[in-house]
């Protein structure tokens, strides 16, 4: 079952197209990473899913509802990098103020989060560092054990230690919630995301399980006995390059038998073939460069 869905979603800001024909599904229980370069439309999708912005065309369903009422919002934790907080409140008052809004608020969990994040209870939010503020926002969004956690660039500009603490806090909730996270921090995301969606210029290029993505992307290095790069390479081979007798490319639909058969068909009998898995960051960079080249 999908906890979040978009149907042919489109959004324009005056004449600028931010999203176009977006169909995205986030399965229940997943940790879904929404990746894409700056301006790809990640924040716009999230804001439409959270009913903060209205779409120009299409619609969304969050927790099965097109329009979020307070009842749905009681089950959603939302944290964004540029959220405006009630700066005059102390951390303790902020938590106490939010408590009555959530029937599932768990005092013990709230205490635990405050301790875990080492948040100073009597300090006003305006006097907290950026990292601390993000921790306070996350603590206030996890204390009621939400069914869905939506995070928009939560790690942006944070030092590694704070990032680790936030991820740790998040992972403790991952077992009981679906998480949608948009981030540039691909290395961090890779460690805990179960699904990934790639947005480019307002379009969804792919959306799949992380294991499937990792399995289908391979960096291939072929050492040949002769020079020359043949034409008509398979379209799934991205960024092909050649130096001396070595050909390198990224296979975006890797299947060992088929890839090897294609290599033999194009290069004859190579001296050696090296096939290596790729981290998410390398996959992302490959896709971005391939898109730019195609454009």
């Amino acid at each position, binding site marked *: 079952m999908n906890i979040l869905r978009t149907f042919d979603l489109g959004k324009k800001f005056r004449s600028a197209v931010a999203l176009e024909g977006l169909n995205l599904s986030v399965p229940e229980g997943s940790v879904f990473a929404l990746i894409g370069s700056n301006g790809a439309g990640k924040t716009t999708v999230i804001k439409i899913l959270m009913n903060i912005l209205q779409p120009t065309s299409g619609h969304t369903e969050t927790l099965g509802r097109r329009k979020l009422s307070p009842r749905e919002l009681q089950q959603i934790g939302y944290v964004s990098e540029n959220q*405006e907080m009630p700066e005059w409140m102390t951390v303790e008052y902020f938590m106490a103020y939010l408590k009555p809004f959530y029937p599932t608020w768990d005092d013990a969990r709230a205490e635990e989060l405050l301790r875990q994040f080492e948040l100073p209870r009597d300090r006003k939010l305006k006097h907290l560092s950026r990292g601390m503020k993000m921790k306070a926002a996350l603590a206030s969004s996890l204390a009621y054990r939400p069914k869905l956690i939506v995070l928009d660039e939560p790690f942006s500009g944070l030092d590694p230690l704070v990032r680790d603490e936030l991820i740790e806090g998040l992972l403790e909730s991952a077992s009981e919630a679906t998480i949608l996270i948009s981030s540039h921090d691909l290395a961090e995301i890779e460690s805990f995301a179960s699904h990934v969606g790639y947005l480019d210029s307002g379009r969804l290029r792919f959306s799949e399980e992380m294991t499937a993505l990792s399995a289908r992307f391979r960096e291939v290095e072929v050492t040949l006995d002769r020079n020359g790069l043949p034409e008509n390479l398979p379209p799934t081979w991205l960024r092909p390059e050649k130096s001396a007798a070595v050909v390198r490319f990224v296979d975006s639909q890797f299947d060992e038998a088929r890839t090897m058969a294609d290599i033999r068909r194009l290069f004859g009998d190579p001296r050696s073939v090296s096939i290596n898995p790729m981290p998410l960051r390398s996959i992302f960079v490959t896709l971005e460069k391939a898109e730019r080249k195609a454009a």
Partner: protein
Amino acid sequence: MKQALHIFSKDVRHLRWEIGISLLLMVTFVLIQLRRDFVRHADAAVFSYFLLAFWAFLCARLIQAEAIRGDRQFWITRPYEWRSLLAAKLLFMVVFIGIPLFVADAVTLGMEGFSITSNVVGLVWSLILITAGTLLAFCAFATLTRGLTEWMLGAVMTVGVLYVIAVIANEKAWGGVEWMRDYGYVAIVFIASTAVLLWQYARRGTAAAMVMMAAGWLGSSLFINYSHSSWALELETRFFKPEVDPSSIRVAVRSPAERGRKGVLPEWQQAVSLAIPVDISGLPEGVDLISDQVDVAIMDGRKEIWAREGRPGSGYLEHLPGSHRLLVQVDRWVVERGPVNVGLTLYLTSLRDSASRVVRPGETVDVPGAGRCRDVVEGRDSWIVCESPLRAPPNVLVVELGGVRRDRFLNSTSYSPFPADADSAIIPLGRYSHSGPVHFAPATLTSLEPLAHFRRDLDLRDVTLTDYQLLR
């Protein structure tokens, strides 16, 4: 309701300093009003603007604690019920502006010697009016802005535009029906503000709300400043239930006593006063008559060449010993034009004596239906000052000075059926005065109770206006 109270208590904690300052300002305001010095009463008027400005600021702080405009506020992804949020904000306004203002007004009236219990309905009504016409507008405006800087810029621009509209506006006196204009203004502002608040809290659609607010303010401002009094007088003549049937009252124009120009007008004089003798018959015993407005249309044949409508100060019915005449002002070029037809529309009110009191130097007298009046002398100037709680007096005050009757002496009568005027919550005790270089007291003040409002149309065919020219 539980959520509304929760948000309300958060706002109280957040805005405790602002609340303190507001209450302090209100106490100061009461003290300023209680100064008996008549001239210094102007201080209260100035201070009332300051108080209004602070309330506008307080409303902005209150609304922007959960700002409506923008897409980054923490609260919009939290389970707020919009009705609870709006209710919390309105409750705050009532508790920290409305109720203190009610108490301040009651204390002011009480300390000034007016009965609080007999004015309690008026006090509540007055509070409803200021909430509908002012405080809701402050809150609605605040929902359109993102922060205090934006709010400040918006407020300065709005006040500037409304001021310019007001500066080039029509006359303010409406012959006793000003209340219709004021209530119309309050109604437009109330409808626009309510629409903006409901729209913003339910939908958060600032662009549409800005259009609604601008339409409301421009509409109300144009209405209060540019609409003519004739429609209000017309409504009054049709819907005010007369206590005495005015159908027997006849008004007819008489020929001038002598014809021809009665002197030479100086070059610079562009307006000419005409004195048109009239006969009034059929007045029941003890019933008097005053004009609320006289509209004039001058025609060459059937074609209108000059008209003046909705200008109560430019024409009136004057009482002379044993007779009446209409005094109207017209442009000089019309008078000098030659034979014309004149159409006169008279909005009249029949009245009967309610009470007469003599005011002596240094004394204060209660004149029923006209307020509490006294004679004030400061230096070479003299005033007759009447004070009336929460609304302009319902009766017409007439003063006999040196054997000459001065109608509408204070020009303050309101035929409003309501217990409070639209602006009475800020300064609950209205002071109406007439000043002059002569000492008025002792003077006889007569309060006349309105019985019926009606209209009479008069036609003068082929007349030479110089025959009616009045040289002062």
